[in-house]
């Protein structure tokens, strides 16, 4: 039985230690881009399923600028078969690309690809909406489960038995009917590093770039009733005493504190 898994993959921006906000975002020179940690786990989960079963295709879907192809190639190097990237001027110039718009675009890709299973990450490390996967599920009429840290797929039976990681060391065991969208939690597996061979092969794998029009939508898809009106560094709520003077002196002050406090007698 052949099967197709679609993995939503996003690149995320990490901020350097020292940075400045310029306008309504952090100035570009302080940002570094990487594959979203949670999507790395989702890719690994999909690739493992494809390795354990015959005839499973893994396709990644990304809404992102050309720069994100570096991230997408990483996913291909780790074993995804093919990639779709959606982008155009209208998306680029959107004021605020909200979850609804992103899910609409991803839903259009799903419609075209017709996957049996969609894996996404619990959250994107930079925006942390934690909402794209379930919104997408509702749009495409798939079942879903959020924050999945264990997955046992019964392909023939059309059921995904998952663990949802709740708060405080408790997991919920749930059976989800497929087709389904699962949002994958970190720790579910051990993401592989891309091998040199994988990286070479990734260059040859198909990466289709599509516009809003190509996926059958019109530009109004990027309109949003939400607008970001400011970004700023919050005033530090803390009043931490900072010990300084180099490692030795700092260690000495901390040691003295620990002895005074009575938690260490050494």
């Amino acid at each position: 039985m052949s099967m197709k898994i679609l993995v939503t993959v996003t690149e995320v921006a990490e901020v350097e230690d020292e940075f400045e906000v310029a306008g309504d975002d952090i100035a570009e020179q302080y940002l570094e881009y990487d594959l979203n940690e949670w999507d790395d786990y989702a890719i690994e989960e999909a690739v493992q399923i494809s390795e354990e079963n015959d005839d499973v295709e893994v396709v990644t879907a990304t809404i992102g600028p050309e720069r994100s192809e570096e991230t997408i190639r990483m996913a291909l190097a780790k074993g995804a078969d093919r990639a779709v990237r959606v982008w155009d001027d209208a998306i680029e110039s959107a004021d605020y690309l909200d979850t609804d718009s992103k899910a609409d675009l991803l839903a259009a890709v799903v419609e075209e690809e017709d996957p049996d299973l969609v894996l996404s990450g619990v959250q994107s490390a930079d925006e942390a909406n934690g909402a794209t996967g379930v919104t997408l599920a509702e749009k495409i009429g798939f079942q879903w489960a959020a924050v999945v840290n264990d997955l046992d797929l019964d392909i023939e039976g059309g059921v995904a038995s998952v663990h949802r990681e709740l708060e405080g060391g408790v997991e919920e065991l749930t059976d989800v009917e497929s087709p389904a969208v699962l949002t994958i939690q970190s720790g579910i597996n051990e993401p592989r590093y891309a091998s040199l061979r994988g990286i070479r092969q990734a260059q040859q794998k198909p990466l289709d770039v599509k516009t809003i029009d190509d996926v059958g939508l019109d530009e109004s898809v990027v309109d949003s009733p939400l607008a970001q009106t400011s970004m700023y560094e919050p005033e530090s709520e803390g009043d931490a005493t900072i010990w300084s003077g180099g490692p030795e002196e700092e260690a000495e002050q901390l040691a003295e504190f620990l002895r005074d406090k009575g938690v260490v007698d050494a």
Partner: protein
Amino acid sequence: MSDVLAVTEHRRGELRDVSLEMVSAGRDLADEMGGDLHLAVISGDVDAYADQVNREGVDAIHTVEYGEEFNHDVYAQAVEQLADDLDAEYVLMPNSVNGLDYAPAVAEGLSLPLVTDVVDFSADGELEVTREQYGGKVETTIEVSEDRAAITTRPAEWPQAEGQGDAEVSAFDADIDESQIQSTVTGFEEVAGGDVDISEAEFLVSIGRGIEEEENLPLIEALVEATDATLSSSRPIVDNGWLPANRQVGQSGKVVTPDVYIAIGISGAVQHVAGMKGADTIVAINTDPNAPIYDLADYGIEDDLFDVVPALIEEFGGEVPDV
């Protein structure tokens, strides 16, 4: 009038604390927008839960009797029908793990704009919400130009509501379509057991992603030994399999309340902080002066852990391992 419908949460027969936070957050929003605060209590022993959330500031409580435990299809249907029935402008849900599982569906089902993990509201004609970005390094304000929205609020950001309320509790007859329930909870499992209980420890040395590699862990273990501390960690260390799950501090790990908590190479993400903010004294060792951990630290060392930790081990007469 802009009414607010806030949704409560329970698990395995107990109301969760976040429900009382929803009362405070909901009252806050209702006051900003000038409306009433309605609460939804769904599944399980709804009357008992309704009684517990009947605090000052609540205008009405609606119970939906259906099943025992949380099921996202039941919650989504019940909340959508209630919001329609009440004509509520704002649907407020917790950004808990279960919130992640149904709030986006509610927003989609009601065609409401969705903003998640909100930490503050303000209104100047239009609603503006505050949320964090880039791992808590910056805050953003998001303006909602429609006068309706689905919002999830960050756990532990609002206080638990107090004071006995006198809201009327009424049963809402939701029409739950069973064919729409396509997932089944088959049980629960406790993880992170074992011989060590970090929640009992008085002195925790906690390590995060700043340690970089498993090969560097002996450095921290040497510090733990020299100081007779208990070792704990942030999530990535456990995700990587470098320490067992019972060492993890945070939302999905353990809540700890030691006299002293030393966070080494830990940024202070909200889900980590959820587990350690109750420590009496917090010390951060982190090269990044902008790391959110410094917002709650009492003491800090803004220096490289690979320099500070060896010096600390020597302070206590320990042996610095070769890493």
